[in-house]
């Protein structure tokens, strides 16, 4: 092929005829920059919170902090720890999960696998309303009903009930979504083998959705682990170790953070940061643990 002479009015042959150029190239670059920028902006608060909490928390965090309670510790003392609060938080969250996870899972199974149109609409509406309950209201409800009216007094269990009220709608809605993602083909394959419906749900549908359900449960747990307001009214808080969640006031990490951070003294402020750091660690550990638990099966077989 001979090279044509460049003529007036005829554009020079472009060596890259498919290159993006002009307005489109500009908009493309702009959008790319905007997306990356948005990502960085979204990361800033996350990184800042973790960074700051770790930095301030390390001043007091350590084995001494994890193994001692606040019994007999004054605001000016440098010692004292979060053992009683960790114990309380773990017990309260476990109890709350023990109440809300089976209940929520059963509700989601009903909604997705059994319910008629009318009933599911009502249940879904109620669950959505429940999602909007402010945490202090859940605390007030348990306070009025359990602590006062039934004379049960403050306890870790009372707090667990308030937390369960907050967890329940999250568990129901996420589990329902995850169950809906399981293709009907698997249900029909099971029915065609003569497997009863309950067995199909238990052995085919739930295992298929288990990873998503676990994530939903963990989100719910993470949400309530840091709740403070309902615990003030139900668990009350304590400086002493109380291993029995069914009797007497307990502590909890959010309560400890709240109490210590309200103090004017640097030693107490340090304890609050260390407790906050502990709280983050617990949530991360729970999350990672749950993910490993659900993935172990799949990995073993691969």
């Amino acid at each position, binding site marked *: 092929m001979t090279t044509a002479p460049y003529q007036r009015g005829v554009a020079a042959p472009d060596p890259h005829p498919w290159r993006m150029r002009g307005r489109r190239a500009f908009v493309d670059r702009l959008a790319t920059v905007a997306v990356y920028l948005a990502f960085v902006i979204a990361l800033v608060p996350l990184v800042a919170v973790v960074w700051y909490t770790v930095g301030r928390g390390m001043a007091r965090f350590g084995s001494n902090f994890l193994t001692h309670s606040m019994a007999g510790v004054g605001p000016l003392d440098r010692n004292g720890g979060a053992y009683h609060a960790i114990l309380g938080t773990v017990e309260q969250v476990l109890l709350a999960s023990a109440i809300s996870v089976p209940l929520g899972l059963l509700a989601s199974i009903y909604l997705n696998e059994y319910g008629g149109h009318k009933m599911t609409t009502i249940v879904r509406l109620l669950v959505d309303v429940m999602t909007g309950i402010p945490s202090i209201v859940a605390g007030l409800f348990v306070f009025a009903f359990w602590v006062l009216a039934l004379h049960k007094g403050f306890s870790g269990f009372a707090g667990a009930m308030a937390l369960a009220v907050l967890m329940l709608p999250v568990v129901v809605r996420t589990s329902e979504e995850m169950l809906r993602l399981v*293709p009907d*083909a*698997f*249900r*029909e*394959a*099971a*029915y*065609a*083998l*003569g*497997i*009863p*419906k309950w*067995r*199909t749900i238990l*052995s*085919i549908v739930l*295992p*298929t959705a*288990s990873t998503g359900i676990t994530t939903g449960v963990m989100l719910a747990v993470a949400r309530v682990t840091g709740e403070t307001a309902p615990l003030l009214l139900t668990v009350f808080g304590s400086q002493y170790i109380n291993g029995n969640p069914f009797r007497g006031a307990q502590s909890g990490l959010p309560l400890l953070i709240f109490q210590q951070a309200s103090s004017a003294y640097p030693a107490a402020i340090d304890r609050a940061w260390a407790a906050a750091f502990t709280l983050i660690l617990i949530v991360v550990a729970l999350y990672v643990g749950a993910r490993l638990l659900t993935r172990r*099966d*799949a990995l073993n*077989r*691969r």
Partner: protein
Amino acid sequence: MAKRIEVIGLSCFYGQHQAVADVSMMIEPKTVTALIGPSGCGKSTFLRSLNRLHEVVPGARIEGRVLLDDHNIYGTDVDPVMLRRSVGMVFQRPNPFPTMSIFDNVAAGLRLAGQKSKDLTDVVERALVGAHLWDEVKDRLKKPAIALSGGQQQRLCIARAIAVEPEVLLMDEPCSALDPISTLAIEDLMAELKDRYTIVIVTHNMQQASRVSEMTGFFTLAAAGQPGTLVEFDATSKVFSTPTHKRTEDYITGRVG
């Protein structure tokens, strides 16, 4: 073992919509019966009514009778769960259970249908041999079923279906998602399975229908939204050489959809 299916005046509905109207046919034991016809003509719905899977869809119902060896499967004394153990099904898309291993998939029917867990090794091996899959998977029975290829998955689904030893095997376009080699493997398999089972297969592939079946039923619908009807039901050789109805001829010669 293999059972005769007699369908008398069967109509299938999805809510107000009628998908199949007044179908009657006699399906003999130990034969392969092919159902052909354009999309949406109710072949699959008809097939799903033979193991009462049709009614799993909300609002779905049927009229008429389906007799399995003279016993009405829609009788009030029939438990659809028990019925489906006698009438197995293979679906269009391979659908092995994703959380289970190859072995567990084949054993699923027996294990989850309430039978006490005796040793299932022999049953699983027999089913996999029967589905021509044993040699390919015998060394990796504990591996997840979804790691298999599409054709292998479909043969796994056939193994899963025959492991519960049904009397009838329904196949809903079992090869339409597979390549020609896998299709051939499954067609060979069908020729073997019909010694023990009554097989009903829905297919869009007319060569397949003429290759594998003794009897052929042609379904069609008058217009979109109209229920599908059975136009012709006869020996496969007759349907494909000298069909009685003009519409059957038009369809199998490719003149009209």
